[in-house]
């Protein structure tokens, strides 16, 4: 059984998201792409550290050549800037909203979930399961995976949470499969 949960990472109020994003389904049913680009060789780290950051599309380390420190500082800023925009503090680009639209197959009404208030995939999963009334004992049979822009399925836990959360790339089309 595979429940289709479509999370869209789009500005709030935007009705269109052309790509399906988050998917809820049983692990065995998911065709996880074995090509785990770029997250092998010990680049997996819990901390959003320099070593784990990559140009996600190409799996390139250190490209474009922007200093780690600068990337971090700018990212924190854009993130906060956008959250502030959400709260109506100031105008600005809203293309990197931290809100995610949730839609479940068979359910007409879409829901919204704020990624930024979660600290890990654990808490996100818990929230999602509560949202869709999945009992806790069924939790273990679900695995969180997501589809990126190029259509590859990747296991969510392989990506450091903060990396996934704050990366613009992933932000546009993360497709979770629980």
């Amino acid at each position, binding site marked *: 059984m595979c429940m289709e949960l479509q999370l869209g990472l789009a500005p709030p109020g935007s009705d269109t998201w052309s790509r399906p994003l988050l998917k809820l389904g049983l692990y065995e049913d998911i065709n996880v792409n074995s090509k785990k680009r770029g997250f092998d060789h*010990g680049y997996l780290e819990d901390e959003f550290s320099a070593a784990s950051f990559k*140009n996600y599309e190409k799996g*390139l380390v250190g*490209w474009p050549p*922007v200093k780690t420190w600068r990337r971090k*500082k700018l990212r924190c*800023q*854009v993130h*906060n800037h956008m959250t502030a925009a959400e709260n109506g503090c100031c105008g600005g680009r809203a293309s990197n909203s931290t809100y995610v639209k949730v839609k479940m197959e068979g359910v007409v009404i879409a829901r919204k979930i704020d990624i930024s208030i979660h600290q890990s995939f654990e808490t996100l999963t818990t929230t999602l399961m509560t949202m869709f009334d999945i009992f806790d004992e069924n939790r273990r049979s679900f695995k969180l995976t997501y589809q990126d822009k190029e259509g590859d399925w990747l296991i969510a836990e392989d990506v450091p949470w903060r990396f996934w959360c704050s990366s*613009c790339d992933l932000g546009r089309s993360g497709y979770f499969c629980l």
Partner: protein
Amino acid sequence: MHKKMAFSFPDEVLEHVFSFIQSDKDRNAVSMVCKSWYEIERWCRRKVFVGNCYAVSPRMVIRRFPEFRSIELKGKPHFADFNLVPDGWGGYVFPWIAEMAGAYPWLEEIRLKRMVVTDESLELIAKSFKNFKVLVLSSCEGFSTDGLAAIAASCKNLKELDLRDCEVDDLSAHWLSHFPETYTSLVSLNISCLGSDEASFSALERLVRRCTNLKTLRLNRAVPLDKIANILRHAPQLVEFGTGTYTADVRPDVYSDLAGVLSSCKELKSLSGFWDVIPDYLPAIYPVCSKLTSLNLSYATIQSPDLIKLVSHCPNLQRLLVLDYIEDSGLEVLASSCKDLQELRVFPSDPFGAEPNVSLTEQGLVAVSLGCPKLQSVLYFCRRMSNEALVTIARSRPNFTRFRLCIIEPKTADYLTLEPLDVGFGAIVQYCKDLRRLSLSGLLTDRVFEYIGTYAKKLEMLSVAFAGDSDLGLHHVLSGCESLRKLEIRDCPFGDKALLANAAKLETMRSLWISSCAVSFAACKLLGQKMPRLNVEVIDERGPPDSRPENCPVDKLYIYRSIAGPRFDMPPFVWTMDEDSGLRLS
């Protein structure tokens, strides 16, 4: 009789003459004239520069220069800035501090770049050097605010504490309170890289108030906008100021307070910081803009119209760092307003986005090159380029000394002709005869390297990525660039031939970094064997290189000349190729 007179200047006279020679290069040249000049020079050299901390040992430096007061050390290769050097690689400063602590109680200045600095090292500095005055840490890591507290508490004569782009473990903002109440000698403080969520504002205010010689103050993001006025009020003599966060609820009293205090800073020449900027507060700095020579807006996520307004108020700007939100239109205004501009850096606001998020193209760079006659240093990130634009830029601005262009997508061709950008970059090296530093990007064949080898005779540092077709490319560079000191290459089809054929060249350079290319382990071993004065270090996180076939390419290779021999502090993923052509296991 005449012969004798040539050497009859007393040492003190020569020493006095040498004291006017400050540059490292000149000092080195002086020391090579004859034995007696070598001797005199080494006793009176006060500033020592070590471009690669592994090229020489601390003891060797101390032996040769018994009375230096200032040392500058650089550690990790430049590509460490982009995460290409794994953690734990090296660059530890502690051995240097330990040796100097014993030999130089009168050491005054330490400047470090890309080194690992521990709290232990900082504590040792604080304890050992009674007249310590200047600590500049640039892109360093490994220490916490505890180490800073030790410096603050003990260094009574500290004038400069400058932490640039450092990774600091922010345990407590209260380290600032460790400066004693009697301490007043601070001239420059840069804590912009500190993160602490709570800053000790009162300690900071008190410090600023009593240090009346303070000229440079760069705050960190934790300092809110409404606190800046209180701090600045006590320092109207500031020449360089970095704000903290530049956002707050828009309140007229906060605004006028800030504007008032800023306009009383008559000496202000440089502004930076501007995190979380909201445009409403920007006009507060307009009164000081006309005197500004340096402006760092590279964290300011404001849009082109606000940037344009700001920049038009700064006719005397010499240095601008900005995000690509400035767009081509903003750069055109810059070109017409800021005729004194010498250095421009445009950073990408969305480096990993597939589509451009702003309208910044090669046109902006062309505009600035055409409009700013003194422009000599550029770092520019964009998404498209053409040979035509590069040729225009080269022709109009032959005075470039540093040209670093990053076209974000690797191997991007000329967007007009779909050809490689060889001709464009060729024009840059041909027209800009004083070019010292060059970074390439875009689609490039071996031809661009032929141009570089032929024309770039003053080039000292070259950065190459995703370029070239064959070893010939590398050969052109190594055989042609006479002044080359640092070469860093990644993801290019360069292999053994060019490297081995130009082995001798490597001894004339500071270092060569080559990663994700096609250099085999066998070639590395051979190089290590042939060249005893080179440290040939293989970095490979996959495991020992001899666990794979010899002709397998190594992951990363760092080669540097050294008179200190192989180093002993290597982590498990670094192997040095020594004369025995075997592996030295660390």
